[in-house]
């Protein structure tokens, strides 16, 4: 089936301005994807404002020169700079200037200066069943799975083109049929104490991503809602280890009141029974550092820390002085709350480096060390830090991360699956 544009879309695509360019980009993508038409969207979340080279800056500036403006609510994912000035970014000129120009161009296009990979915790929560065009893999998976809004994984350039046209190609997860589960991921054989622990969700997410790839699955055996920050960590880890865009948890996520409903009456194509042994292997796989006597830093906040996660951090530090820094990445939505009551100052006095608008794996922040060791409680940082920062990674719970930062050496509490 070939793509057909309505007369209004055709007229826009024929224009020589920024909106015309955006419409042609959306239409060309739709044609490549085999989408029969474009559909209206309610909002976008834009990952394209992170600097990868000058061409992306020139593209955004061309849209601005062409008078383009976003026509739906559009939040911005992280950039390459900490515009709030909380942390020092080691990006040098001329790249620094080009990164700043890029962030400025996206602001001029009418995007909100959210600069966060957790827009869903910064007040951008599309309605259940609405069509949206989101970028950033963890935001995509949260939007689809936890909010029940419908999006595919929108890559750089297509995200802003959708925002300017208010349209997206009709294919993939926009279609209800493609959202039902085909596989079952059963965690009922794991201990309740493990499932109730903070480390369970990034580890299970990492395992889930590797086991199911991009197939839609439903997690069964979860008896209590693990909380939104746990689902955030699960989705981010799953989207890092596999091309997961949507998951369901029976009795927890909105499209899966129970297993039967989300399988839509069909038998599952496969049932993955998660064993304590699989969990142990997945947990070990999140670390790349060999046994080590010391660590150089802790990084948390991928996805960006929520206000509740800062509460836990503050409680665990309990006023102590850290031996190695904890890089705590977050968005300005959470920073505003931290500043209101002097908590930012207290955290920084302990040795926490608050990183705002960006994070430690997308831009150079941590010192360049030949063989640095980084501890993290984030499945996503564990996945990307070795390649992007050169640090080897140790994966641990937030409590262990804090104790290790206080002592400057790794501390692990065993939680059996």
């Amino acid at each position: 089936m070939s793509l057909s544009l309505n007369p209004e879309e055709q007229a826009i695509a024929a224009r020589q301005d920024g909106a015309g360019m955006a419409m042609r980009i959306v239409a060309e993508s739709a044609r490549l994807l085999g989408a029969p038409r474009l559909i209206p969207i309610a909002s976008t979340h834009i990952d394209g404002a992170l600097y990868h080279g000058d061409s992306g800056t020139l593209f955004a500036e061309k849209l601005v020169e062409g008078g383009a403006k976003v026509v739906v609510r559009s939040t911005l994912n992280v950039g390459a700079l900490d515009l709030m000035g909380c942390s020092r970014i080691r990006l040098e000129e001329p790249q620094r200037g080009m990164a700043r120009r890029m962030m400025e161009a996206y602001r001029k296009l009418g995007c909100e200066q959210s600069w966060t990979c957790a827009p869903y915790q910064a007040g951008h929560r599309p309605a259940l069943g609405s069509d949206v065009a989101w970028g950033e893999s963890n935001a995509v998976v949260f939007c689809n799975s936890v909010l029940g809004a419908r999006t595919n994984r929108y890559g750089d350039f297509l995200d802003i083109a959708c925002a300017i046209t208010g349209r997206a190609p009709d294919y993939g997860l926009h279609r209800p049929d493609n959202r039902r589960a085909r596989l079952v991921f059963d965690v009922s054989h794991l201990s309740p104490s493990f499932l109730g622990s903070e480390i369970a969700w990034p580890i299970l997410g990492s395992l889930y991503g590797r086991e199911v790839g991009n197939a839609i699955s439903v997690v069964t055996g979860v008896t209590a809602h693990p909380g939104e920050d746990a689902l955030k960590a699960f989705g981010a880890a799953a989207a890092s280890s596999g091309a997961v865009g949507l998951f369901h948890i029976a009795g927890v996520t909105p499209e899966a009141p129970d297993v039967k409903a989300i399988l839509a009456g069909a038998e599952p194509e496969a049932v993955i029974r998660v064993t304590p042994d699989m969990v142990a292997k997945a947990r070990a796989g999140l670390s790349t550092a060999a046994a080590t006597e010391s660590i150089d830093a802790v990084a948390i906040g991928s996805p960006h820390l929520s206000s509740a996660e800062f509460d836990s951090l503050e409680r665990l530090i309990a006023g102590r002085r850290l031996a190695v820094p904890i890089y705590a990445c977050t968005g300005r939505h959470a920073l505003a709350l931290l500043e209101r009551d002097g908590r930012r100052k207290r955290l920084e006095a302990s040795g926490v480096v608050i990183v705002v608008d960006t994070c430690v794996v997308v831009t150079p922040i941590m010192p360049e060390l030949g063989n640095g060791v980084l501890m993290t409680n984030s499945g996503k940082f564990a996945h990307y830090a070795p390649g992007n920062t050169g640090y080897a990674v140790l994966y641990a719970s937030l409590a262990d991360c804090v104790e290790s930062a206080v002592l400057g050496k790794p501390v692990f509490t065993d939680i059996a699956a």
Partner: protein
Amino acid sequence: MSATAEILVPGKAGEGEALVLTAPISFWGGVDPKTGRIADVRHPQHGEVIAGRVLFLPGTIGSSSASAVLMELVHNGRAPAALVLHEPDAILLLGLIVAREMGWETPIAVRLGRDAFDTYSGRVRIAEDGALNVSGE
């Protein structure tokens, strides 16, 4: 060997040494946007340079910033001479679509069955109409 391939994204005809990748690649983090060198140490063709080659791609994996890397290669004059894919990859090819909109000269991208990849070696030419030829034949 000669064949006529379906055009995925029109562009400039290209000629160069064939580079047939034997595993999918993530452009972001996997290909250096300044040089076109395959930087992913786990990739079987690690160290090869894709600039100026006729690149046979058995799929892409990973980050949705692949489009940004391909566009950056075009802008830096380090893009492949032509791209051959076994299926349309909307995220990667968006890099060419956007580069065209920027008025930059982009290589042609065509579709060819994956089982035919291995029959290409040496200098390959892809014409603007999608005709593939091995030079000297």
